[in-house]
């Protein structure tokens, strides 16, 4: 084995650094081209934004994605139905359980399986808990991108309580793979209900803290208010969903308006909207959303029905021939699966409609005319998970 000399190592490190420097290129013809990414702290992964600048202002911007494309739609075609949940766990990795639900619901719709009430309720609880795990990190992360360190630590600290509860049920902190066609893998462990209620209190305290520390912060408001305004008609035509749509004043939540197979119908909760459509509105709606989610979970825990958590399903699952599209209100927005079955043990074609893909397609539009520091604020407030863009 040859040893590298100091000079060789230095030359190597310099070459690496030179590669890195290519990332920011200067163009002199008409303005400057600023390249953010693929490796940039503000992009939660490998997203590349190329912005053409005139002074400090963005003239045009383009988003280049696909650095993490894993081809799930193709992979689903060679997997059996129970194996697909393992794949789709990794789409939105902060709220993994929520990814499984629409797929399972679509398969159940075609198989015409009626899920036991208890399974439905526990499913809804875990669905909302993945919302907490996802969005609580959003607010900390957003603050971090704008230069505030503390909220990120607080978010990681309090999110842990939610993850612990998810882990206690499913055995997995990030990739539960717990949802099954016909119900759930297991029932809740003993003592879980009381622990979860305590965790919900913690999350509500976290929300109050974030209201003061982040949303109420003067600097935060100056960075976010009036920045990246997306009017409702633009949001709709780009297919923005979730808090991004409700932050533009569109009162639409699939949990309330198109509840399929989950236990939202008997609960008392509110869908929050904000008329402004700016970065602040989107962040504000998200914080309200996790507060509502804790209320939803509390009510579900109070009225948890007894009984089985699994319907009778055949051991080898074959979904009858047909097509189904089921979408749910995931932490990031509308997520749906268009499932085509040919009566086989695996799907014929799965189209994954992920929220972030549509949410981020508006970026070239919304970045036009903003200032460079606002790029970070807008990308942060649109909130995407790379796995949800590059499926």
């Amino acid at each position, binding site marked *: 084995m040859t040893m590298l000399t100091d000079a060789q190592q230095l030359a190597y490190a310099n070459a690496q650094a030179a590669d890195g420097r290519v990332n920011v290129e200067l163009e002199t013809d008409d303005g400057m081209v600023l390249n953010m990414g693929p490796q940039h702290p503000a992009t939660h992964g490998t997203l590349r934004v190329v912005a053409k600048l005139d002074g400090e202002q963005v003239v045009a911007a383009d988003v280049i994605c696909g650095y993490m*494309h894993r081809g799930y739609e*193709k992979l689903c075609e*060679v997997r059996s139905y129970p194996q697909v949940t393992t794949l789709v766990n990794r789409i939105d990795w902060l709220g993994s359980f929520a990814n499984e639900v629409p797929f399972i619901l679509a398969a159940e719709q075609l198989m015409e399986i009626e899920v036991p009430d208890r399974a439905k309720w526990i499913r809804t609880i875990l669905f909302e808990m993945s919302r907490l795990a996802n969005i609580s990190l959003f607010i900390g992360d957003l603050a971090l991108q704008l230069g505030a360190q503390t909220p990120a630590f607080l978010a990681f600290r309090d999110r842990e309580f939610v993850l612990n509860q998810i882990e206690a049920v499913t055995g997995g902190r990030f990739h539960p793979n717990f949802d099954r066609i016909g*119900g759930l893998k297991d029932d809740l462990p003993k003592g879980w209900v009381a622990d979860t209620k305590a965790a919900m209190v913690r999350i509500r305290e976290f929300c109050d803290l974030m209201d003061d520390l982040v949303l109420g912060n003067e600097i935060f408001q100056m960075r976010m208010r009036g920045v990246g305004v997306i009017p409702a008609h633009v949001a709709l*035509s780009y297919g923005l969903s979730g808090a991004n749509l409700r932050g533009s004043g569109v009162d639409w939540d699939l949990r309330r308006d198109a509840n399929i197979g989950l236990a939202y119908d008997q609960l008392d909760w509110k869908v929050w909207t904000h008329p402004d459509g700016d970065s602040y509105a989107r962040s504000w709606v998200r914080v309200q959303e996790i507060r509502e989610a804790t209320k939803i979970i509390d009510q579900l825990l109070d009225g948890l029905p007894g009984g089985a958590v699994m319907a009778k399903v055949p051991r080898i699952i074959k979904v009858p021939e047909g097509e189904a599209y089921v979408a749910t209100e995931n932490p990031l927005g509308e997520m749906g699966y*268009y499932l085509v079955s040919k009566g086989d*043990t695996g799907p014929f074609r799965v189209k994954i409609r992920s929220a972030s893909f*549509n949410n981020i*397609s508006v970026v070239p539009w919304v970045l036009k005319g903003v200032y460079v520091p606002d790029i970070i604020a807008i990308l942060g407030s649109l909130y995407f998970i790379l796995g949800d863009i590059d499926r």
Partner: protein
Amino acid sequence: MADEATTDAEAPEAVTDERREEVLAALTDALGDAVVDSLIKPGLNLWVRVATEAWSEAADVAAARLGFRFFDFLSAIDWLPSPYGRYEDSAVDTPFPPAMPDRSAVEPGYTGGDTRFQVLGSVAKPGTDLRILLKADVPDDDLRIGTWTRTYAGAAWHERETHEMFGITFEGNADLRHLYLPSEFEGHPLRKEFPLLSRVIKPWPGIVDVEPMPGEDDSADSEAEGADA
């Protein structure tokens, strides 16, 4: 008993879905003969197949006249059965592509169709659970169809994705660069004849797992009982 069970099961089927019927009637009214076929699953979804030439117009009508202003997604379906088989048929994992299934093997799904490729788009009405799943045939010899970008700005990226994955060209969408794939990538990965390379290189390892262990033959029954308890 059996007869009673079937009538019970069929009773909810007979329920008509007036809201979706209305949507379909309005769409048919506006598009006329361009609506080729349709299907309503009461309480669930509405499928409409429109003529190839009317693909863009259908989106216009849905957005402007019917209020389906929310763009959901746009993609395509390749109805040809895969020549590679599924994981159970791992014997076909060879580096040489097996013979392509005959064109006659193409079997379309809901609302029928005459071509191998169909585009599939979905639009929704904000504030409701109403959604139209629109389909249109893409002619086999000329994979072209109109664009939705005039109506829905968000369709631009979806059409880019569909273009690279299936090779379908959307006329009127000027920007059909690759979205996910490297710009020099050749082929259309979501077509059924495109091999899943990892599967070609290495046979499916999970095949061992599905062989029953000795004495485990009756475990299916005991598991089903366990779920009841």
